[in-house]
């Protein structure tokens, strides 16, 4: 097949834009289309739960712009907005849009992202039960929070993970009272050590956020179609002016699955972002990456979208580019910045450095004596150092980390 046959990219978020621009950098000269469902040109999502929300969600969406339409046009990237892809026919190599239009492709890339998990309980479809994915959601949440603040009603956040806690912090900043209902016994329990969870719990409590742990939400009730009450399994009831649900995301792999691509809670790709079909690549939140040991890894981050996007573009051009950088994530809550380098999953020991009460400390995660990840709270230089240590595989021992007087920065310099 002609290598300059048109390439279609489904999804116009961080990963989609990266694939498109990397394709041009890789020298692709053919037709290139970026298909997005939302009315906005590609934008940056992380601020939607952080600064943008805390500022009231009334900001100009342009300030979030990842790429303007003009910038894409200059690179001859055809941006199709408010276009939903209904189906992909791999045999005919064409996709069908929601309006019935058919587009042929030479090659195809999926960058469909993820969708918020929905609450599987009665009343979850009531008005003022809100999820966060795009600009419109952030605006709706900010509006609901402001209304709650004005009416002196509580904002109930379901889920004590990143999104839930960032929304809670934003709601406090907008002046609303907040209750966070968490299903497990501590905050962000899937991704951090107890010491980090406790530090964040203290920070939020200092800002008068109320926490309820081990809370299994069983029903949302309302009147006039609007939510008013959240009920948990132990019979407790929490009055609510609005409910924000942040219980994780699920990869949006529906179209790929229906097209017959191998999916397991995400489109399965290899380390070069290739799917089972040589004409199709995928990148970002919508993927599940097959690791050399056979496990599937799902990363939800900008870095993953960017790196997999670069790999996917290379793959579509018939080249091999492996994504091997250390994963990193971050969260902003009030004046506390959490930065995470590496994946702490499966750790057996945690050593902290710094002041736990301030909070300004880092948690070093070890697995079988080997450093695997570092979470830093207000310790920017620790985070940046950890990324470099993990990238270059220069790993300090547990004794070195535990010794507060040991200079970790010196370790990097020695090998540099």
């Amino acid at each position, binding site marked *: 097949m002609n290598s300059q046959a048109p390439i279609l990219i489904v999804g116009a978020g961080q990963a989609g834009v990266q694939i498109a621009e990397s394709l041009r950098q890789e020298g692709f000269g053919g037709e290139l289309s970026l298909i997005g469902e939302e009315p906005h040109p590609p934008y*940056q999502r992380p601020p939607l739960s952080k*600064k943008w929300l805390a500022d009231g969600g009334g900001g100009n969406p342009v300030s979030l712009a990842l790429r303007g339409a003009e910038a894409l046009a200059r690179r001859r990237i055809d941006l199709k907005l408010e276009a939903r892809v209904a189906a992909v026919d791999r045999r005919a190599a064409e996709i069908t849009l929601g309006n019935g239009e058919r587009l042929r492709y030479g090659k195809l890339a999926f960058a469909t992202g993820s969708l918020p998990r929905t609450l599987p309980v009665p009343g979850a479809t009531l008005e003022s039960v809100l999820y966060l994915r795009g600009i419109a959601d952030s605006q709706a949440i900010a509006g609901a929070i402001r209304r709650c603040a004005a009416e002196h009603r509580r904002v109930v956040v379901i889920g004590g993970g990143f999104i839930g806690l960032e929304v809670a912090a934003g709601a406090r900043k907008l002046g609303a009272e907040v209750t966070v209902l968490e299903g497990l016994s501590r905050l962000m329990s899937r991704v951090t050590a107890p010491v980090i969870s406790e530090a964040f719990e203290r920070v939020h409590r200092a800002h008068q956020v109320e926490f309820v742990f081990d809370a299994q939400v069983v029903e949302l009730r309302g009147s006039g179609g609007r939510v008013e009450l959240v009920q948990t399994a132990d019979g407790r009831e929490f009055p609510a002016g609005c409910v924000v649900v942040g219980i994780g995301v699920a990869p949006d792999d529906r179209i790929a699955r229906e097209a017959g691509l191998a999916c397991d809670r995400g489109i399965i790709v290899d380390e070069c972002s290739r799917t089972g079909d040589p004409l199709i690549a995928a990148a970002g939140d919508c993927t599940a990456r097959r690791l050399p040991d056979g496990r599937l890894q799902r990363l939800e981050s900008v870095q993953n979208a960017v790196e997999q996007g670069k790999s996917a573009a290379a793959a579509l051009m018939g080249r091999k580019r492996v994504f091997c950088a250390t994963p990193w994530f971050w969260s902003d809550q009030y004046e506390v910045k959490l930065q995470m380098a590496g994946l702490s999953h499966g750790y057996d020991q945690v050593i902290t450095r710094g002041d736990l009460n301030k909070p300004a400390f880092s948690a070093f995660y070890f697995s079988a004596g080997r450093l695997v990840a570092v979470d830093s709270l207000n310790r*920017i230089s620790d985070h940046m150092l950890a990324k470099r240590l993990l990238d270059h595989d220069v790993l300090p021992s547990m004794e070195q980390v535990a010794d507060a007087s040991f200079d970790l920065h010196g370790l990097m310099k020695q090998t540099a």
Partner: protein
Amino acid sequence: MISGEIFYPRRAQKCCRVGAVWPPGTVTYWLCPHPVWWPVPRVTYIEPDGHAVTLEVKSGRTVMSAAMEAGIEGIEAQCGGNLACATCHCYVQEPWLDQLPLPSEDELLMLGNVAAERRDNSRLSCQLIVRPQLDGLTVQFPERQS
């Protein structure tokens, strides 16, 4: 008007300090003590290959945000301006460095870990807010950001 310079009409924005008055954002535009229409400031970006692009950037926007929207080469800005990634590193050209507010402690820490060479005029473009007084600001992006 300087002789020899080509004059062309520029978009204007009311008041020199929208959002710049302390505390930020509290003085709205009709209360502004500077009832003057200011031209929208221009910022020049020099891409890693030396190519220069000049954009009109509205007062109050960051140097990073306008560069991202316009698709300027040499900037990644992965964290979207949250001071978490140091991938919007730029070199501020003279004479503008002294005109900018000093970097915060956090920005200095991040600057200590940029991927490209750190120079005396290194700044993170997500922390540089455009003001009419900065009309003509020129920044250069380095070879690599990550």
